[in-house]
């Protein structure tokens, strides 16, 4: 079968990823930032008379509770909006931390090689022999529940994701002639790393950062699902899922809505990451022109 060449008009599907991802992430970010203004109710306000109300559009729905109520009569929409705050806080803070540690170590390992590389490589090996979820549970046990522990746990688990991938990229960049030239001209190691190598690894770094934010959202959901993230006086998506699981036979909506929130957020970050990889990676851009 002969393949039809892709039409020009359809190439937006590729660059469109960045736009679509940015829009999704933007929406969640707005929800998170303006949750107190957007939420129609107090997310903790219980109303034991109106429990498990279905969403407003289905039969038995109440327009004051647009997305219905949970098993304690709390407004699902408000809880989702406040949950976005937790998710985004963790996503941004944890990914920044993981990136900072991972990227620094990757650049040191790839640039200096030798003993430094060996040591960092073995550390990555040890970390990689743990399934991430198991390691974060062990860390959470040590750190105690709470949102700052969640952030710290993700940083301590996921720095390897940056380190592994970036190290290879640094190794390749380091062998470029212009890097050798920079050293010959008399650039210090620090200046070579920050001025010559970092700009080359930046596209990959940005892509990884975007994908890591999606991973952080998932990990936060997992940890709050098992009751190790935020306390009972805050709302997180994973916690909402855990609650809804108890009443799965009475109300499927309570389960589906926080799941949808997680999915949309992660999709946004993944689309953004995937799109950035395609537009920023010169090798891929070249392949597209062929």
């Amino acid at each position, binding site marked *: *079968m002969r*393949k*039809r*060449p*892709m*039409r020009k008009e*359809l190439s937006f*599907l*590729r660059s469109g*990823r960045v736009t679509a991802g940015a829009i999704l992430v933007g929406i969640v970010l707005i929800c998170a930032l303006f949750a107190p203004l957007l939420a129609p109710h107090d997310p903790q306000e219980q109303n034991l008379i109106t429990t498990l109300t279905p969403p407003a559009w289905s039969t038995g729905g109440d327009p004051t509770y647009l997305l219905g109520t949970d098993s304690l009569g709390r407004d699902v929409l408000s809880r989702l909006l406040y949950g976005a705050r937790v998710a985004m806080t963790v996503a941004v803070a944890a990914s920044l931390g993981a990136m900072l540690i991972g990227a620094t170590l990757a650049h040191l390992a790839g640039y200096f090689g030798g003993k430094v590389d060996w040591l960092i490589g073995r550390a990555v*090996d*040890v970390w*990689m*022999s*743990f*399934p*991430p*979820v*198991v*390691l974060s*549970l*062990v*860390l*959470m*046990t*040590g750190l*105690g529940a709470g949102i700052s522990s969640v952030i710290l746990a993700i940083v301590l688990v996921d720095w390897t994701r940056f380190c592994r991938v970036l190290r290879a990229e640094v190794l390749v960049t380091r062998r470029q002639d212009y890097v050798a030239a920079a050293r010959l001209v008399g650039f210090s190691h620090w200046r070579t790393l920050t001025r010559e190598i970092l700009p080359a690894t930046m596209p990959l770094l940005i892509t990884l950062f975007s994908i890591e934010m*999606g991973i952080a959202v*998932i990990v936060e*959901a*997992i940890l709050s*699902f*098992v*009751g*190790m993230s935020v306390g009972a006086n805050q709302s997180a998506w994973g916690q909402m*899922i855990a609650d809804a*699981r108890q009443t*799965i*036979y009475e109300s*499927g909506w309570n*389960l*589906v809505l926080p*799941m949808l929130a*997680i*999915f949309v957020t*992660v*999709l946004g970050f*993944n*689309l953004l990451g*995937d799109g950035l990889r395609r537009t920023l990676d010169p090798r891929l851009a070249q392949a597209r022109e062929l």
Partner: protein
Amino acid sequence: MIVQVLGLFARRLLVAIPILFVVSALVFVVLRVLPVDPAAMSMPPNATKAEIEMKRQEMGLDRPLPEQYAIWLDKTVKGDLGSSIHFRRAVSSLIAETLPATVELALLAMLIAAALGFAGGLLLFHLRGTWRGEAADLGSTVLMSAPDFLWGLLFILAFGVLWPLLPFTGRLASSFARPVHTGFLLLDTLIEGRPDMFLDVVKHMLLPATALGLAFSVPIMRVLRSSLYEIDHADYIRQARLRGVSEGRILLRHALKNAVLPTLTLMGVQFGFLFGGTLLIEVIYSYPGLGNLMVDAVRNADLPIIQAVALAYAAVVLIINMIVDGLYLVLNPRLRTV
């Protein structure tokens, strides 16, 4: 070739053992900074301070940390993993009960992931360059954004609650007496010669294994697709095309064989992650494996279990990596030459 594989195993073991030491030390230190007192937890609430102090001494908690670790390591190497504070049972027997369940689930999930991944990868490659291909590619990004536990919950809602098709709790219907031979229920039911029981076990595993498998099939698809892409430009593929070999035959007989190697490497890494993914899936499906044991232990701050289970996960991941490397050696003739 067997010698080479064994040699590889030996070399990998030499690396794996120190890694396990470091892993165990790491877990030990992390758990010792815990604000709770395991001695106080293992005593009845009306115990006096002196009694708790005695228990602390008995458990060795009053000694310096390196000494505690040395004692724990010495016992662990001898196969004594201590006893659970919460369950009041030997940790080793708890792990022996739950580990086969998790391994069984992970293997079935991996099988499903491989089947879906290969089918999807071939499809993505086949549709390359068309609008359908673009759509399928976008579809795979969308699929990738749903983590395994979301699939798990969705399956429960769809095939357990709304359309009750399959069971979604435990490993075996309570009407059956659980056979005890190897701990692997798929095997045990066959040993007993009970196909009805075997079927029930499969039914119980189907939803959790598919949820896991589906989530992990997407990266497999994408890597297979891109390695097929690369190979498509190889001379021997062009040659085949010039000779008039059909596209389907080129794909299945020539390209796939060579594209499979990078995919296999990825699958090895993925299997490690998948094994970790069983943890939450087990919790969601009340599946009595390592994951449920771990989460229970974390909730009860049951340190001996957490320590041992974390180590068990790490050991399994290292073993998986070893097996995959061995398989790689067997399948890739280029690596076999001295």
